[in-house]
């Protein structure tokens, strides 16, 4: 301790640091840096606040004053008495129509509901790798269960379809190891044989006294139809897309050109023309007495459509792999199917995941187009039976907003999943 008092003033301790100026701390600093850093920025901020205000001031009272319990638009107007307010009762009153279409038997709603719940169980092991692999067995059986639940009818149909696949798989498992082509073609022939033989076994009257009453495809509708088309077509188009992409890379000119022409043709035309093909033209190409129902025809065309896009995405993934990977597989003595299965495709598909998910989201949104060929999906239901009815003529915003919300939830969910998956699969060191 200095005791010399000849010096006029000696500071013996540090001044406590003074707090930063108010403009450099906390909320004020954040506001200055992020919203009002320059004149232009401030103007942008004010414009943005004004835009948000306009949107909210229009929608919030409308939603808050919404009426949920009336049975027609006229009653809604009576309750609202000229105030701004939504008439959400159309959603509650027509809920079943929006979800299942207007012809699906009311007593059977539990069937699509159950199929929808099981979908999560079936999709879970595909989407999340940490789950036990045994669950994949259920995933494999799911298409047949879902078919039986939604369409009903005799249980023999899905069982024989499943048996065909199982027979083909075991044949392939036994012989495919030595010779891929032999195993594959033999398995396909065996499956075909099982289907034809089994189909002959089903009695004509099987549908009449089935456990679940049969529901014809034309009775399907509403958001259920969108979900069914989306799930079916995405899962069918993925293997087809892989085959097309490999075919396009093939060194065999004939195979290559078939794939190139198919892909470029499909990608060059709008989906709606392909749906026209399904609704008015495809029937001419089936055998004269056969009646292939519209749902199946639409599934064929949408699957071909998305397979072409997925093929292009996977081709990008294949092209992104360094040539060394192909050469390494060759030098290990792997043949083509082995090299693809063990070395090339796992890497190429990993790179392609964001693109594939984009295609899947686009495809799911495009399922609304079936309303143009007079199938009553969600949009078809809204524009057709609901808006045309006398009770609900004029309730546009509630219905369209509901449709938009449903699609937004599903599509946004899928894209968030894909981002999670990308982070999960990132094996490079950063």
């Amino acid at each position: 301790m200095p005791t010399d008092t000849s010096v006029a003033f000696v500071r013996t301790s540090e001044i406590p640091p003074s707090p930063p100026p108010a403009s450099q701390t906390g909320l004020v600093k954040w506001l200055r840096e992020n919203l009002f850093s320059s004149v232009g920025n401030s103007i942008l901020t004010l414009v943005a606040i004004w835009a948000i205000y306009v949107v909210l001031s229009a929608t919030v009272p409308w939603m808050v004053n919404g009426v949920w319990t009336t049975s027609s638009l006229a009653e809604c107007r009576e309750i609202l008495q000229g105030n701004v307010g939504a008439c959400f009762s159309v959603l509650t009153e027509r809920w079943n129509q929006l979800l299942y279409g207007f012809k699906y038997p009311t007593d059977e709603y539990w069937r699509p509901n159950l199929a929808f719940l099981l979908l999560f169980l079936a999709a879970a092991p595909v989407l999340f790798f940490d789950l036990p692999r045994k669950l994949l067995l259920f995933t494999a059986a799911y298409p047949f269960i879902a078919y039986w639940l939604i369409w009903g009818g005799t249980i023999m149909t899905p069982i024989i379809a499943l048996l065909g696949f199982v027979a083909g798989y075991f044949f392939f498992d036994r012989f495919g190891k030595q010779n891929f082509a032999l195993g594959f073609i033999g398995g396909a022939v065996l499956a075909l044989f099982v289907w034809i033989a089994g189909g002959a076994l089903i009695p004509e009257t099987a549908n009449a006294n089935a456990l679940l009453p049969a529901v014809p495809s034309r009775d399907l509708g509403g958001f259920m139809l969108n979900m069914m088309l989306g799930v079916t077509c995405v899962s069918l188009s993925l293997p087809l897309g892989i085959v097309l992409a490999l075919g396009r890379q093939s060194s065999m000119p004939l195979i290559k050109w078939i794939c190139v022409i198919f892909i470029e043709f499909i990608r060059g035309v709008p989906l709606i023309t392909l749906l026209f093909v399904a609704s008015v033209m495809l029937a001419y190409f089936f055998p004269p007495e056969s009646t292939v129902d519209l749902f199946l025809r639409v599934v064929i065309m949408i699957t071909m459509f998305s397979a072409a896009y997925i093929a292009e995405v996977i081709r990008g993934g294949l092209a992104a792999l360094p040539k060394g990977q192909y050469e390494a597989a060759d030098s290990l003595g792997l043949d083509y199917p082995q090299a693809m299965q063990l070395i090339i495709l796992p890497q190429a598909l990993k790179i392609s995941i964001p693109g594939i998910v984009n295609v899947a989201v686009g495809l799911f949104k495009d399922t609304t187009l079936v309303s143009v060929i007079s199938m009553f999906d969600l949009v078809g239901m809204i524009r057709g039976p609901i808006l045309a009815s006398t009770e609900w003529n004029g309730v546009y915003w509630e219905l369209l907003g509901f449709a938009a919300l449903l699609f937004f939830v599903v599509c946004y969910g899928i894209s968030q999943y894909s981002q999670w998956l990308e982070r999960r699969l990132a094996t490079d060191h950063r």
Partner: protein
Amino acid sequence: MASLTDPPRQSFRLSMLFNDTRYRSLTFQAIAAILLALAIWYLGNNLIQNLRAAGLNISYDFFGEPAGYDINQRLIEYDSQSTHGRAAVVGILNTLLVAFLACITATVFGVIAGVLRLSNNWLVAKLMAVYVEIFRNIPVLIWIIIIFTIMTAVLPSPRAYRGDDATHSMLFDLFAFTNRGVYIPGPTFTNPIGGIGISWLLVLGVLVASFFGARAIAARATRIQEQTGERPTTWYLTLGVWFVPVAILLAVMGLTWNVPELRGFNFSGGIKIGGPLIALWFALSIYTGAFIAENVRAGIQAISKGQTEAAGALGLRPGRIMNLVVLPQALRVIIPPLISQYLNITKNSSLAIAVGYADITATLGGITLNQTGRAIECVLLLMLFYLTISLLISAGMNVYNNSVKLKER
């Protein structure tokens, strides 16, 4: 001394077709060719049988027959007595019109949203993220229907503009927004040179000539700069070359604006843009704009900060850094996806049929198909049209890609 002998020559065995790589690809291609031929034969046979059963044949004669339906929105003369062929041409022009308009506005929306999403302004960036996510994740068909509903159910009828106690009035006395369409002033010529159509072609020709003139001026400026090191000031020359000739031409032909007026129960004069066209145009623009915004953002983010800093270290000013360093590299990333978005707009414009805009899908693939029952011919021609457009656009894209490709080794 050991002697090497050639391995014994294997005679050809049938299993070599599958097991020997020399023959395997031939085998597979032969199988594929046979399957393809079988499939074509099967489908063709079914087609012939079905057509015979229905008493139909493939014929394009219906193109010469009168169509018998009206089209509201059209770029060329057409009435219900015109042929199906002419209806298809009207449809093609309408498709090209809406695709062209939507490409321009979608680019504008997309670039603005993409740049603003990278803005330092937190609120604006978040707002743009919300815009992109909302519009990308909801089907374009729903957007088209929503905007069409706004056009028809929210906008006032022309009647609301009538009388002394009119509830609505025209914007600047020039534009009228009604549920029958939007009316805007249209240019006309009081003394056109050889018909209205030829006059417009003349205007276009003069603009093309101006374009080449402006390029010549820029080339001359560059030449002088390379010789002397000083670039002559040319902006007033360029401006003059662009505007003076066309202004003179328009003045000679007597350009006047035909303003829409309320006559009776409806507006007349000016240009009427129908509700369906606006719905389709605007919906395609905002929907595709959200995708373009993401492309623009990715393009700008793809340019590493080092590029900007290096350019700054060379002493370039910010404007020149943008023009000479960042933009040329970002455009290389942005333009290919941008062009495929244009392709998407063209293909999505086929959704016009949902709101009754008479594009090629609605005329050839809709009313003509239903009236004549010629499903196969109509759908095939429809596909051929879209295929041609797509191939043209992708050919253009390939040319562009090759011209801007990084030239390496």
